[in-house]
C-alpha cells in the first residue's frame, strides 16, 4: 500500500471529527472519498497531509509511519494536494505559483515545468500572468500543475468540482484521469459522487466521521443506499 490510515481519530478541540477511519490507496490507484457536508472529508485529507494531528491511529505512507511527521516531510516523500477552492497565490504569477509547488524540491525544475506545460499548453503562454486574474478553469490548471511540480506519487484532490461550471467539472475529471494514467495514485474527495465514481477504481463513503461503506467503484454505483443518499435517483 502506498497510503494506509489505520483507525484514525482526529479531534478539533473537544469535537470528535474522524472516528476510527481506516482507508488505503495502492500505488497508481484512483480512489474516491465520498460524503456530504461535515462528514469529515476535508479533515481526512488534512490528517493525511499532516495539517492536523490525529489523537490516535496511524498514517503510513510508502512504508514510513508519518503520523507525527511534518507536512514538509510528507511532501518530500511524495504527497501533493490540490486544495479545496484551489487556494492559488493570487498576487503571484503562474510561474511563481508553480515554483511554490516545487518548494521541497531542489535542483533544476525545468523538466517539471516542461511536463506541466505539456499537460496544460495554455499555461506556457500565461507564465507571467497573475494567478488571481485568471478564469476558474485556468486557475484549476494552475492548481493541478502546482501540485504536479513536486512530481508526487500520491495526488490528493479536495473537491475538484467545487465552484466550476459543469463543462469544467468534466474537464477537471479528464485531468484527474490523465494524471492517474501517468502512474500517479490519486485520492479524490468529492460531493459529486456520480462523477467521482465514473473515474475511480474504488471508493469510500464517509458519514459523520466513519467509513460507512467501501467497495469497487462500479459496485458502489449500483448500491441502493448510496444511490438514495448521494446520487439522487
Amino acid at each position: 500500500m502506498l497510503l494506509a490510515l489505520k483507525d484514525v481519530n482526529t479531534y478539533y478541540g473537544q469535537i470528535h471529527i474522524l472516528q476510527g477511519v481506516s482507508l488505503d490507496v495502492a500505488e497508481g490507484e484512483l480512489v474516491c472519498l465520498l460524503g456530504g457536508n461535515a462528514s469529515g472529508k476535508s479533515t481526512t485529507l488534512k490528517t493525511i497531509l499532516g495539517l492536523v494531528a490525529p489523537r490516535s491511529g496511524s498514517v503510513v505512507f510508502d512504508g514510513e509511519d508519518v503520523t507525527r511527521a511534518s507536512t514538509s516531510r510528507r511532501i518530500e516523500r511524495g504527497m501533493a494536494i490540490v486544495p479545496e477552492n484551489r487556494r492559488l497565490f493570487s498576487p503571484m504569477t503562474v510561474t511563481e505559483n508553480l515554483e511554490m509547488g516545487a518548494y521541497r524540491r531542489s535542483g533544476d525544475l525545468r523538466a517539471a515545468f516542461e511536463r506541466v506545460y505539456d499537460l496544460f499548453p495554455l499555461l506556457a503562454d500565461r507564465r507571467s500572468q497573475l494567478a488571481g486574474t485568471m478564469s476558474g478553469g485556468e486557475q484549476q490548471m494552475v492548481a493541478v500543475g502546482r501540485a504536479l511540480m513536486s512530481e508526487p506519487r500520491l495526488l490528493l484532490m479536495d473537491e475538484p468540482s467545487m465552484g466550476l461550471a459543469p463543462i469544467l467539472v468534466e474537464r477537471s475529471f479528464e485531468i484527474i484521469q490523465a494524471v492517474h494514467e501517468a502512474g500517479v495514485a490519486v485520492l479524490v474527495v468529492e460531493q459529486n459522487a456520480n462523477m467521482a465514481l465514473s473515474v475511480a477504481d474504488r471508493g469510500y463513503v464517509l458519514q459523520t466521521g466513519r467509513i460507512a461503506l467501501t467497495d469497487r467503484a462500479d459496485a458502489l454505483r449500483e448500491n441502493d443506499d448510496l444511490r438514495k443518499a448521494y446520487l439522487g435517483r
Partner: protein
Amino acid sequence: MEFFVQQLVNGLTLGSVYALIALGYSMVYGILKLLNFAHGEVYMVGAFIGYGVLTMAGGAADPVLPAAVLVPLMFLAAMIGSGLLGVAIERFAYRPLRDAPRIAPLISAVGVSFFLQAAALLLFTARIRNYDTPELIPFSVGVEVGPLRISLVRILVIVTAVVLMVALTLLVSRTRLGKAMRATAYDREAAAMMGIDTDRVIAATFFIGSVLAGAAGVMIGLVFSRVFHFMGFLAGLKGFTAAVVGGIGNIPGAMVGGLLIGLAEAYAAAYLSSRFSELVVFTILIGVMLVRPSGLFGTPALQKV
C-alpha cells in the same frame, strides 16, 4: 532656496530611517496581521549595539580602527543583534499565541515593548549616550553642491538605506525565500500545503525586518547622536505611521510612506516650529486614514472567495 534644499536632505535622511523601520512593521503585519509594537525597541537595541561597538573600539574620539572599518562593523553588529532579537521576540512572545484571538499577541507586543525599555533602563540607566560622530567623521567632510554642503554622514545614511531597500526588494521578488514569504503572507495554510515551513518563513521575516530596524538605529545614532532607552517609542510610532500611510503590508508603500513622513517632519520643523513636527506627522496619519484608509499603496481589503 538653499534652505529648502537643505531641508530636503534632512527630510531624506530622516525619511530613510523611518522607511527602514516602517518596512519591519509592514512585513510582519503582512505575514501575521500583527502590529509588532515592540519593533521600536528593536531599533533602540540596534542603536545601543552600535554604541557598544563604538565604545569597545575606543570611542569616536580615539578609535583603534579607522572609521571606514569601524562604521560598517557597527552596522553589521547592530543588524545581526537586532535581527536575532526579533527572532527571539517572535519565538517566545508571539508564536505561542499564534492561534489565540488576535488581541492576545497585540498585548504581548506591548508587553515586550515595555520589557525591553525597562531592561535598557536597568542596564544602561537613563543617561543619553552620544555617538559623537563628528569626531569620527567630521561633519565638515562632504559633497559641495553649489552653495550647499551635504555631509558625508548623511550621504552614508541615505545610500545605505537605498542599498538595503533595493536588496530587500530583490530578495522578496526574486529569491525562493522571498516568494515563500509572499505566499505565506497571502495564505498561510495554502503555503503549508505546498510544504513551505511557514514557522521558518515567519521567523525569517522577523529577522529581516529587525535587521533593517537595527540599521536604522545606528543611522539615527550617527546623525543625531542621541541614544537612550526610550528612543524607540516615538521612532516606532513614526515608523508605524509611515507603514500605515503607505499601506500596511505593502513594501514599496512603507518606503514611500517613510520618506513622506521624514520630509513632512523636516519641513514642519523648518518652516513652522520643531514643536509642530510631530503634530504634522500624526495629522497626516489621521488625514490618510480618513481619505484612504488602506493607505497610499494599499488595496482595499477584499473578501477572499
